[in-house]
């Protein structure tokens, strides 16, 4: 039997097919249309790649901000829980999971058994998210993939505000005018984003292992900034942008009972 997870993010839609033991396939589509059709497209493509049909899939769980728009999903699950589930499945020693998406970031703490016990979200601000780094890339005229490597080449970091993405923007521009090197500005941008994420981690309490997932986890500059700020090694699973979708597929696999049938924890 197979199970599917669809993660409708702010910038891209991800689909993962899981059979209870391994990932059969995954696919990503950068969102250029509304959530429903994007989700349908990426899901259909993935099924076709795997030579499967929709009827072969036992259950589909949707997650992400657009989860409510995925009409073919059996149920939706929160991105916080999916990220924690997915990360824990890939790296069973994970106790703190951070998911850095395009428009939102969140930190989850897990108990030794892997149950999510607490989470924190970034507030209504792009600071500390993937798009914050993208914004910096635009001003530095650097492709987003090179932002991380660029910052790694820097000696120290320029000071960039972490309070607000709009403030940071004007700081970046003035750094450029003052002749600050691009490497140091890039390092400063990562440090600013990392500071916000470090705050989120602080709110749930850091316990090792710290696992970072989401598209921004591919950025070595951000990972380095987080390692410096938290003073612990950061683990990044393979294909971090698919972890939330994988978590949704795992939820689809493991959640047989419905909400109303749950048993109360007493005492």
């Amino acid at each position: 039997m197979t199970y599917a997870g669809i993660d409708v993010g702010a910038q891209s839609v991800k689909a993962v097919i899981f059979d209870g033991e391994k990932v059969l396939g995954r696919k990503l589509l950068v969102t250029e249309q509304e959530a429903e059709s994007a989700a349908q497209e990426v899901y259909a493509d993935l099924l076709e790649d795997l030579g499967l049909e929709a009827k072969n899939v036992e259950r589909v769980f949707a997650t992400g901000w657009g989860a409510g728009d995925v009409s073919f999903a059996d149920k939706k699950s929160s991105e916080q829980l999916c990220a924690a589930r997915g990360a824990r499945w890939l790296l069973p020693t994970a106790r703190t999971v951070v998911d850095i998406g395009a428009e939102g970031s969140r930190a989850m703490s897990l108990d030794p058994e892997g149950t999510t016990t607490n989470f924190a979200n970034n507030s209504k601000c792009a600071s500390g998210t993937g798009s914050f780094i993208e914004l910096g890339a635009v001003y530095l005229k650097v492709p987003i993939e090179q932002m991380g490597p660029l910052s790694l080449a820097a000696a120290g970091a320029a000071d960039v505000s972490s309070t607000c993405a709009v403030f940071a923007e004007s700081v970046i521009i003035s750094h450029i005018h003052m002749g600050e090197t691009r490497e140091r500005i890039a390092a400063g941008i990562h440090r600013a984003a990392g500071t916000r994420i470090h705050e989120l981690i602080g709110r749930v309490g850091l316990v090792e292992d710290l696992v970072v997932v989401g598209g921004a986890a591919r950025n070595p500059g951000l990972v380095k900034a987080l390692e410096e700020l938290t003073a612990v090694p950061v683990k990044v699973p393979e294909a971090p942008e698919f972890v939330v979708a994988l978590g949704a597929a795992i939820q689809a696999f493991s959640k047989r009972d419905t909400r109303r049938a749950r048993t109360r924890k007493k005492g």
Partner: protein
Amino acid sequence: MNETIAWYVENRHEATKKWKQETGKKVYGYFCCVTPEEILAAADILPVRITGTGEPLKNVDLHVPPNSCPFARSCLDAGMLGIYDYLDGVVVPTTCDIISTMEYFWKTLIPRPNKPSIIGGRDLTPFVHSIAYPEKVTGRQVMPYYVDVLRLFKQELERTLRRIITDEDLARVIAVYNEDKAQMKRLYEMRKSDPPAVSGYEAWQITYSSVLMPKDQHAALAKGYLDDLEASGRKAEPGVRLYVSGSAMDSVGSHIYKVIEESGGQVVSDDLCMGTRFFWNPLDTAMPPLEAVARRSLGTACPRSTSTTPIPENRWSHVLDTAKDYDIEGAIFYTLKCCDARSIENPHLGAQIQKEFGVPVLFLEGDYTTEGIEQMRGRIEAFIEMIEG
């Protein structure tokens, strides 16, 4: 839900205007549940709580900066729009900083219908009354001081209305108020079962309508509703049992109950000034009536007040009282942004709840709009899903 209660909740201004027209009596608006509304009721006045609209603000930006309490800003904006033109007076206790300034703003920005009678620089019949509520609510000097404050307030009212408010008037009102409080206590008792007898939203409708309606009418309606409920044995939808802690939960904030219920949760008790905080403690009938009113007002567990004990414990003991028998599985702190009183105590209070009840706490920051609550939906869903495991 009872039709009259639902009507009051949804159309509070229409309902009050109609009541005023039918009875020919006066209506006073007040801020904060510490207001000694019993004194108003004893003078045959209907005290109604002032709330905002949750709509985009039109006038207030020129006067009150955007980085202050969105609830107070919205209340003032509603006043400036003329929504409260039916009021015959306004009472502002000096509770938190922003509410205290409402006296000044209401006086200066909202024209009063009758002329002030100023003698010796003092307005003898003020339209906007201020109540000098003490900073610390316990301690030796507080009661005599506050009873004096209330006596002055009573005299202001007596001059304005040209009538005497006797101890008998107060005692009669205290009995009515206690009956209403008893009904709401009964309502909260019925929420202890699993599933609770009423949903969080229905319970809120009952408590919220109490700050808008004549108390005798409210007590009778609440009693009828609860009697029916008891007889039918009806239960609310089961859900994750949640405790809500916040401040002014009016029809704007109440949207959170719907989001919680749609996400599989059920609010079973609360720490809200339009919830347990205003009715939890009955008035002491053995005391002289004015002192009983003062004691009730001082006993309100508002996060803005502190006690004189080494560790301020008035807030924690209220939370403990209202949460301990409800078998809660989680707590949601719904705080309006820029609320200093809540922001200061939140980390500490949240940690204490976590420790005492072993449940997770979700901190949310609202902006006093229903859209703002919609943006929190994802976090509320995740929180409930996390508790369900």
